């Protein structure tokens, strides 16, 4: 994969996965926060009631569309490049983009401990490619 075009294509595949995965994660997390504790909903309405509350949420629907696009981008990338390259690269970058997006869009308290954890896991997953 030394040809510049191949490097660019790989970066585009990874970037595509990361963008859709981050958008999907943020939208689904936002939907679940909007709904509240699913354990409580399940106790009061049963498992089908909890499932109905989730699937009728608009943000959840948008999130699933983004995650589906991320999934097909992943399948496409797997068919062209090795799992050992695409998996760690896309996953490790998604940890960092999710931490940034969660701070700005979900207003989560991403303190020093969580940044350290996200960066450690990101580096660790990237090292698994070697």
């Amino acid at each position: 994969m030394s040809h510049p075009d191949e490097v660019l294509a790989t970066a585009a595949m990874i970037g595509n996965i990361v963008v859709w995965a981050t958008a999907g994660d943020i939208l689904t997390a936002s939907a679940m926060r909007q709904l509240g504790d699913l354990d409580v909903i399940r106790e009061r309405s049963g498992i089908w009631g909890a499932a109905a509350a989730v699937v009728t949420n608009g943000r959840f629907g948008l999130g699933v569309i983004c995650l589906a696009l991320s999934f097909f981008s992943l399948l496409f990338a797997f068919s062209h490049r090795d799992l050992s390259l695409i998996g760690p690269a896309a996953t490790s970058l998604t940890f960092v983009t999710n931490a940034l997006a969660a701070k700005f869009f979900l207003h989560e308290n991403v303190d020093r401990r969580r940044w350290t954890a996200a960066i450690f896991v990101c580096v660790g997953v990237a090292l698994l490619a070697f």
Partner: protein
Amino acid sequence: MTRSTMTFRRYIVLGVITITASCGDTFLSRGMKSLGPVSLADPAALIHAIFSPWVAAGIVLLIGFFASYLTALSWADLTYVLPASSLGYVIMTLLAKFWLHEHVSPMRWLGVVFITAGVGFVTQGPSYTDHGAAPACTVDEKHLEQAEEARP
């Protein structure tokens, strides 16, 4: 303000996320490799891939992952759930070494150390950010009513 919402059962849910995600991805990779490269000019081939046994098994596992993941996001922050459930990579590396007897390079062992440290950091801290109006153990009444109406 952050606080802990974790119980033993909720740690089990994080464990289920960990195992189903790593096994699901491995099955998908195996299935796609057996099908060969997919061309951009033939996107229908991706749809066709869904029905191959390994990809289908991977999807079943990833559905289990998604259900557990959504449950976890309803009582914990995204920036807690994602690092806390990343031990799957460590499990896969340990299985590769001790079960499949594969060579695991020093860099991969270093990666395992980093991931384990990251998981340790995040799981020792609070799991949920309170935004005041919507604490973790209450339910949005509007959605609860919708859920009860939808109940058979």
